[in-house]
């Protein structure tokens, strides 16, 4: 018996006005003509509830690029799902915010690139992004919705983390997320420009701890140590096919948003079978579910049902083998390779950023 998933990430489109060099989308972006229709997304919301998930994260690309977003939100609400809009917010006007709140949206998460306008615009590859985001945060608050401020951090902005947190607190969010860049897809191409130094990582832990003390009972701050500086892997997505699934703009159903980087995997779409059928029984979800696929050192490890072997995409990116132990683990024979990638990224200095664009194949 396979437990139902808890949450679904619905990538409504890969279109986005921003060009952040650490975008979590695959390097091969899906084009708008392949996207699911309004009617298909409405059906998908029902199927997400049917398979037993409770939350849906509406993401992208930029989900606001879909003019039918309020219809999709209403469908999520009708299906009983808790809906979370994950947005860059540059398209989030007061008028659209009111429509989304009226459709039953539960929560908004806005990502910020920096607290200083020129630096923020440089990372986003978009002029005037910061000012628009701040106005949008105000619109969220005026509609009475809870706000999460997501601060994406890396070597080029970590020294100003204190300023980033001050900016975030001024936006009156319920929750702040300090999110270290994760090195998949686009971010791997920019690893040398973005990899934090060990001093920055240590200092970030202290800065966040001080802010938590100051803001106790007012704002929750989530902060996770970046993978490359960890010694034990995270249970990626709570374990493959255990808690979470991802739907791409064209309707492919994935165990995680980066799973398409794994070679030789076939992903079924919501146009072929229901989400419930794909979740319970499909080659992609069965591939790394549970523990029977595990090699050593995971197979005999007492943590095998805590971290579930860590992240498959990271194993592939570092070791070349998607079925290897996540090299974040210091029991992995490839942990030294991870460390050498980190050192190499730091030694390379700060090359130009490769921006997220359709058809960009650098790296």
């Amino acid at each position, binding site marked *: 018996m396979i437990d139902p998933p808890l949450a679904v990430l619905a990538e409504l489109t890969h279109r986005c006005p921003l060009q952040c060099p650490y975008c979590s989308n695959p390097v091969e972006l899906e084009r708008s003509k392949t996207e699911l229709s309004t009617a298909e997304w409405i059906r998908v919301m029902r199927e997400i509830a049917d398979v037993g998930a409770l939350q849906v994260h509406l993401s992208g690309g930029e989900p606001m690029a879909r003019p039918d977003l309020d219809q999709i939100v209403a469908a999520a609400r009708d299906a009983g799902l808790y809906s979370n809009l994950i947005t860059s917010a540059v398209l989030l006007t007061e008028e659209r915010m009111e429509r989304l709140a009226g459709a039953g949206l539960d929560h908004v*998460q806005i990502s910020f690139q920096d607290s200083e306008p020129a630096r923020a615009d440089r990372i986003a590859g978009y002029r005037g992004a910061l000012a628009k985001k701040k106005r949008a945060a105000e619109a969220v608050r005026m509609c009475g919705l809870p706000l*999460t401020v997501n601060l994406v951090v890396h070597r080029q902005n970590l020294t100003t983390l204190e300023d980033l947190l001050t900016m975030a607190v001024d936006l009156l969010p319920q929750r702040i997320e300090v999110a270290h860049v994760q090195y998949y897809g686009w971010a791997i191409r920019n690893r040398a420009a973005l990899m934090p130094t060990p001093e920055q990582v240590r200092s970030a832990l202290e800065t966040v701890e001080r802010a938590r003390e100051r803001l106790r*009972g007012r704002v929750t701050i989530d902060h996770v140590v970046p993978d490359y500086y960890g010694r034990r892997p995270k249970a990626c997505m709570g374990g493959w096919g255990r808690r979470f699934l991802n739907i791409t703009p064209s309707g492919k159903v994935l165990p995680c948003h980066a799973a398409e980087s794994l070679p030789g995997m076939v992903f079924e779409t919501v146009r072929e079978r229901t989400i419930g059928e794909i979740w319970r029984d499909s080659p992609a979800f069965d591939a790394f579910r549970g523990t029977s696929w595990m090699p050593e050192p995971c197979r005999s490890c007492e943590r095998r049902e805590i971290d579930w072997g860590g992240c498959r995409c990271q194993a592939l990116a570092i070791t070349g083998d998607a079925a290897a132990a996540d090299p974040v683990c210091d029991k992995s024979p490839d942990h030294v390779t991870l460390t050498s990638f980190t050192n190499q990224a730091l030694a390379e200095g700060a090359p130009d950023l490769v921006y997220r664009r359709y058809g960009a194949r650098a790296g």
Partner: protein
Amino acid sequence: MPRLARGVRTRFDPTRQKWIVLAPERLFVPDEIAFEIIRRCDGTATVGAIADDLAAAFHEQRHVVLKDVTALLSDLAEKGVVVT
């Protein structure tokens, strides 16, 4: 007078046959006692009134109940689930 924080709501989940607390980017399944406390956080009942109500409903001593209610609410307030 405690109430659920902005963006926090409860629902009965027919798949798992359990009450669930849904919040931004997280959810949890409260045990029976925790749920009985959470569902009384409507912004109109005081902590004392919640304890009175629970003591009567579960035939428990009020001072014991009050201690549990206070501890749970303080934990939930710290996690941003409840505001007082």
